[in-house]
């Protein structure tokens, strides 16, 4: 995938796109990678409103006027990698307690989230297989299934057997961001640990598919590298996964690096307009793919994006282990969230936008366990 669209070719397509290329892309039902490049280009900025209208129509046809809700539980902030943009990194310089939830604490966190109505949860850890080994993840999935219809994980890259073991326990989804698809940048920002292995990480999400995981979530951290190019590669990755793991549903997240440790000031952060352009371009290229938007983004922007292509939103999130019930504000957060509204407030906003908030979209009966 990356071989047939090397950086030079993508950059050329994106930078040379003219308004005629954008117009042609907007008239297509089935967009080619060239059309996607045109929609990601500076030339498409003038067509943002038209892209928004089309994106609204396409999303409505595939997903209806619904927004599915989920929330994260950070199981552990212990991390042996040193990713310079991340609060959890060994040398991030961020203050706060390192903690890995005990079983009783996982129960307490699940109970607290479920009491808001959540039926879909995302379990996260840092990159520390010794502190949170596969056995720990398996137990966490089992516990979470007592409280939620759907359980997903966002953890360090596993092998096929690891994913299969979790899938057999009833895990529905795996989210794993490539962070950046640009090899040189990847090497520059991942200083230490197993995560340095670009190829092992790139192939991880398809290993999850091979292991029987039904939902595969990908994304690039927006701000690490040129968002137009990383966005393009993310979209191609999604298409690749749809063919390779044909029984799994692919979703894409749009994590913008709004907050980073002091040692890594972000230079290439997409502006709000550019961020929206990216989501709209991706929606038109990937009409049937779920798009996730987290509380990293502020309330006003999230609300504006409800009709424009987003299909899944988190709400009331804490990025600290034990942040809902067990540990208060002592533990180190991965990043600061912007949208601090309660789940009930987010639900009420979704309703006023004319959308149905969906809590449940999976059932334990799919699994025999």
């Amino acid at each position: 995938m990356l071989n047939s669209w090397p950086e030079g070719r993508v950059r050329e397509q994106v930078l040379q796109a003219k308004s005629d290329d954008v117009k042609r892309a907007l008239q297509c039902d089935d967009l080619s990678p060239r059309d996607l490049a045109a929609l990601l280009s500076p030339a498409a900025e003038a067509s943002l409103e038209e892209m928004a209208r089309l994106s609204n129509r396409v999303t409505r046809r595939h997903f209806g006027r619904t927004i599915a809700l989920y929330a994260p539980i950070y199981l552990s902030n212990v991390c042996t990698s040193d990713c310079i943009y991340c609060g959890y990194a060994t040398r991030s310089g961020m203050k706060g307690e390192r903690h890995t939830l005990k079983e009783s604490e996982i129960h307490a966190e699940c109970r607290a989230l479920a009491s808001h109505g959540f039926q879909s949860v995302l379990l996260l850890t840092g990159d520390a297989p010794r502190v949170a080994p596969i056995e720990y993840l398996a137990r966490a999935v089992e516990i979470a299934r007592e409280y939620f219809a759907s359980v997903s994980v966002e953890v360090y890259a596993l092998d096929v057997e690891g994913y299969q073991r979790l899938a057999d326990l009833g895990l529905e989804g795996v989210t794993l961001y490539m962070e950046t698809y640009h090899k040189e940048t990847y090497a520059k920002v991942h200083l230490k640990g197993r995560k340095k292995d670009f190829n092992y990480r790139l192939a991880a999400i398809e290993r999850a598919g091979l292991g029987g995981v039904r939902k595969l979530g990908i994304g690039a951290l927006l701000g690490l590298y040129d968002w137009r190019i990383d966005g393009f590669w993310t979209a191609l990755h999604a298409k690749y996964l749809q063919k390779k793991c044909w029984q799994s549903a692919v979703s894409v997240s749009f994590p913008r690096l709004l907050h980073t440790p002091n040692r890594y000031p972000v230079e290439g952060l997409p502006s709000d307009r550019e961020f929206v352009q990216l989501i709209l371009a991706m929606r038109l290229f990937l009409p049937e793919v779920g798009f996730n938007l987290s509380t990293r983004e502020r309330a006003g922007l999230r609300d504006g994006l409800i009709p424009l292509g987003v299909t899944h939103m988190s709400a009331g999130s804490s990025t600290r282990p034990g942040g809902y019930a067990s540990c208060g504000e002592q533990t180190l957060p991965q990043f600061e969230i912007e949208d601090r509204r309660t789940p009930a407030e987010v639900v009420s906003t979704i309703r006023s936008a004319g959308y149905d908030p969906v809590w449940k979209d999976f059932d334990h009966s799919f699994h025999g366990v």
Partner: protein
Amino acid sequence: MEKDRLIIAGRSFGSRLMVGTGKFPSAKALRDAVIASKSEIVTVALRRADLSKRGADSILSALDPSKQLILPNTSGARNAAEAVRLAEMARAAGLESWVKLELTPEPKYLIPDPIETLVAAEKLVKAGFVVLPYIQADPVLAKRLEEIGTAAVMPLGSPIGSNRGLKTREMVRIIIEQSNVPVVVDAGLGAPSHAAEAMEMGADAVLVNTALADANDHAAMAKAFALATEAGRLAYLAGLGPVRETAEASSPLTGFLG
């Protein structure tokens, strides 16, 4: 038309329009559409419905089981075992033992898996379910399912949610011609004229969802589909004239010969 009722598994229905419940923007929008459609069979995805909290669930709370048969569907199931488990779960939770069998292992176009559908249908029929399988418009598969004992067959008009209409027209025509069980054209019917077209061909019923959920006025679109379904049925019963390439005078040109 009074006596022209749809009979499935010995049960009689006054409407030949079935409605799906996904993608609606609110419980009220769904309720308005269902009422205006006059539909008596409404299908609900078991993965979406929260059977433990029916009053709070935005789909179940919008329906009236005294007026509509709640037809649970197994959408999202990737193989026969999953579909069977979902159906058993619904029955255990108190829903009627009817099931719309949806086995769509491929999440992009939601094309049904014929092999797993056949396996699941056989198990569910044996377990006492009234089975309505969603299938590709495959006449042989339709016959195989009929032999197993499904109560109907539900061939697709075009991929779910695509609004493209009856792209499978030729195969649907053969299914209708050969079937001894009701044929319900499901999926892809995006406009009332598509529903009318299927009914004119002799389909026993149609199922619509996206076209209603995505309309600006859900109730008006539901009514439009109800009228089109009825019109198509009436035309089928009345006997449509053959389609001709050229104009043909209604009065005989050789009448003068006596």
